């Protein structure tokens, strides 16, 4: 008996501090339950009802009080059952830029015959009231998400999350910690727009245009003072979209190396990464082919969405300060 208690206690102490890979089953041992504030108030009400029944010798008062005592106990089982035995697995998390919120989402699978109602997901042990909730129908799955602010580039791990419920009576709070082994790639926060792209290699020394030719229409960007008036997209301006400049990319200007070394040495590493991120975004927007050169790391020349992701990820994870 004591040994069992002890092992349970150690289990409790060793609750998922470290991430768990794969689907997690909320076994009965991992679900904890305590009365809520409402539960305690309900207890006080029951004591008052009992005292009243004793004082006035109300037989039906006793009946009601004892029925509600049973309800309070039963509510504990129901709340526990509402959470226990759910299967939890983490969904893929889409990358975000630093400063945005990462959306971690969990897939909750209910293998049982009873609908699970009002399951909440929180980062805190005590819910703050702004959590997301979901119902998980019988023999089905549901998705529940939590937004975690991504402050810095790198890998963002959700840490220990708490799945909880107070259903059906709100008298108890049942919770279980999960620590899914997932992370979100947080891209660096890009430098403000407007930083000119480095000169394209093929067009080195020949054009004033930064990697931008005049052959093919490549897209629109915001107007900067000095842009030739014939490149201004007057139609767009007429539609009320503000002044935009048409950009053209010539074959000659379509390849560019975005290199760490091109940036002025007075910038610190994070500023350089921000600039490179901006370049990647701009180059991608111009449908250029580009490569990324960082000290001890190079992403080969390519174009398209995959290249954008590759480069941003490389920047996100490049020498992440711990």
């Amino acid at each position, binding site marked *: 008996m004591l040994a069992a208690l002890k092992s349970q206690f150690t289990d409790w102490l060793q609750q998922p501090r470290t991430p768990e890979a794969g689907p997690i089953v909320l076994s009965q041992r991992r679900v904890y339950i305590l009365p809520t504030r409402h539960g305690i108030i309900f207890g006080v009400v029951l004591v008052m009802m009992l005292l009243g029944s*004793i004082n006035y010798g109300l037989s039906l008062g006793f009946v009601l009080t004892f029925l509600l005592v*049973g309800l309070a*106990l039963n509510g504990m*089982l129901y709340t526990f059952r509402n959470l226990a035995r759910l299967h939890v697995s983490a969904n893929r998390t889409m990358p975000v830029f630093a400063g945005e919120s990462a959306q971690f989402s969990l897939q909750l699978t209910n293998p049982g015959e009873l609908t699970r109602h009002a399951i909440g997901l929180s980062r805190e042990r005590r819910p703050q*009231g702004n959590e997301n909730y979901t119902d998980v129908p019988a023999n089905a799955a549901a998705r529940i998400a939590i937004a975690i602010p991504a402050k810095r580039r790198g890998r963002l791990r959700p840490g220990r999350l708490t799945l909880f419920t107070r*259903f059906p009576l*709100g008298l108890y709070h049942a919770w279980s910690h999960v620590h899914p082994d997932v992370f979100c790639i947080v891209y660096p926060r890009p430098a403000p727009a407007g930083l000119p792209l480095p000169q394209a290699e093929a067009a080195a020394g020949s054009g004033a245009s930064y990697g931008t030719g005049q052959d093919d229409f490549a897209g629109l960007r915001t107007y900067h003072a000095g842009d030739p008036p014939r490149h201004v997209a007057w139609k767009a301006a007429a539609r009320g979209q503000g002044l935009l400049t048409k950009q053209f990319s010539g074959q000659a200007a379509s390849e560019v190396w975005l290199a760490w070394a091109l940036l002025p040495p007075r910038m610190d590493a994070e500023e350089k990464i921000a600039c490179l991120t901006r370049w990647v975004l701009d180059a991608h927007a111009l449908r250029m082919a580009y490569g990324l050169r960082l000290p001890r790391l190079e992403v080969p020349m390519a174009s398209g969405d995959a290249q954008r992701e590759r480069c941003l990820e490389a920047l996100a994870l490049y020498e992440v300060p711990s």
Partner: protein
Amino acid sequence: MSGAAAKAAAAMPIAAISLRSTVWIAVTLALIAAPHAERLPLWLSGLAATFCAWRLYIARMRLELPARWLMVSIVFAGALAIYLQSRTLFGRDAGVALLVLMISLKLMETRTQRDGMMLAFIGYFLVITNFFYSQSIPTALYLLACVWLITATMMGLQYTQPPADTRSQLRTAAVMLAQCVPLMLVFFVLFPRVQGPLWGMPSDAFAGVTGMSDTMSPGTLNKLVYSEDVAFRATFADRVPPQNRLYWRGPVLMDYDGRTWSAAPRAMRNQVELDRRANPVRYTVTLEPHNRRWLFALDMAGLIPPRANLTVDHQLLSQTPVNSRLRYDMESYLDYSFGADGNPNPVRMLAMPRGFNPQTRELGLKLREQYGTNNEAIMSAVLTLLREQKFVYTLEPPLLGAHAVDDFLFKTRAGFCEHFASAFAFLMRSAGVPSRVVTGYLGGEYNALGDYLIVRQSDAHAWTEVWLPNRGWVRVDPTNSVSPARAEGGLAAALPESAVLPRSLLPSTPLFHQLSLTLDSIANAWNQTVLGYNFETQRALLTRAGFDDTSWRTLAIFMIAATGIITLLIALLTLRNRAGQRDFALEAYRQFCDKATRAGIPRRDTEGPLDFARRLAAAKPSAAPAAGAITNLYVALRYDKNNKNNRLQELRKRVRQFAL
């Protein structure tokens, strides 16, 4: 204050209450408070109903709730009005009124889910206040339904997505409550009952019950006759004595002020002193609470129940007012005599107010002259006079003037039992015969279904006792001389056919009558077992059940053990692993694989059912159709969601028949 509130709100942002929950809570509370409506001041019932409707309107139209200062002023005004009406805030009625006022205002302040929970808790509390007024079976059933609704309401407050249907919410609440019944029963039986209240009760805690009073003036008793309420029930050990011997003795009235007979405080005796002539009648009385002290027993009580006394005029008095149903064993001697013992207090038993009823006094003196000290002769002369002078027994006696007895005896000559008793006693005193009035009940209705006698308020009766020198106090029922049918067949039989009978006395169809007797016997069983479960009955029951020790500690241990066992059972019931149900399709398919293995073609671990079927068909072409059918059935059962259960039997059969 607002800073603290803001802080609390910041610590836990609160979900606003949904329209659905608002409707649930308002309707449920209205239903619980509904039985109070007739007892509350009219303005309060109206206010509560208005607020309830107003709150629903606000929720429906998504309006702002009224300003707080308005609500606070209404609370104060309402509390003041309640105080002015009942002169207290702590009595039973005032307390309930205050609670209803608070709840209706809380409803107007309910914004969040948390407020909703508080209202649900108060709702449970409001249920219990109804039991102060009635604990009958219909009340219990009605309030049980209310408890079910509050529980479902509480559940509704916990939803974060609108539930698919209301029925599942109601069903879950019902199941949860039903699962609590075993625990409730165990607690009800074992929870130690105490004698008497823990603290004082408000003085009006048990007010409003009908019953005898310790005074009698013209009109007192015939008001009671209109009440169908049960006064008490009696279960006889042997046969029920005949109706005309069922004189249930209640308050004995000796003092007369010209209009009203009243009982005065008097000395007690420790034991019954009677000439006991025959074997006593043994019976058990279950007395409905009447908030007075007297206990009823057949004339003449042969023993004194526990915690009761006997007065010198042979009236049983409980030591405390009977404010809960009381059961006591009794024995009575229907043939009795006081002998020389019951020596009257001559001054008191002959006292008459001055200046009242001159004609009657004159008649008394005349009788005295005529018969001398022969009290018995005077008595029979008066009874003969009553019989011969065409006195009328009626429920609607004419009004009497200041000389009530004179008016009755010489003018109206129509009255109810109290008129006869009062006039007879007064006339006896005028003739120098000590006499007193006894009130109580006469007769009762036998309920064969439960084998007990029901005595109702409508059986109320008054008679007299006169003192005869060698016989002591003797019962004389003057009504009997006028209308012998009253004692034989009850009030309905005694009244003339033309009389307008009160509803309680209207003859009913045999079927309806039988039904009402059945309901009464159920009510009686409910009273005896459930409502009458108290310190004594608990001890008796537990002793009979084999508990040697009925102390707090033993009972607590039993209750804790029972709680553990019952909770465990419910836990097993609710937490059993429904995911781990047997997969019958897989079991059948395994049998099929075993048969193949025995035939030398084992299924490989990595092989899917279809691949295995193909290999099997290649190896044993003869078994190919059977194996193919089994595989198809198995695949359909396991992997096709739309196809369930119905084809399992076929799969099993085919596996059984399969042979290689």
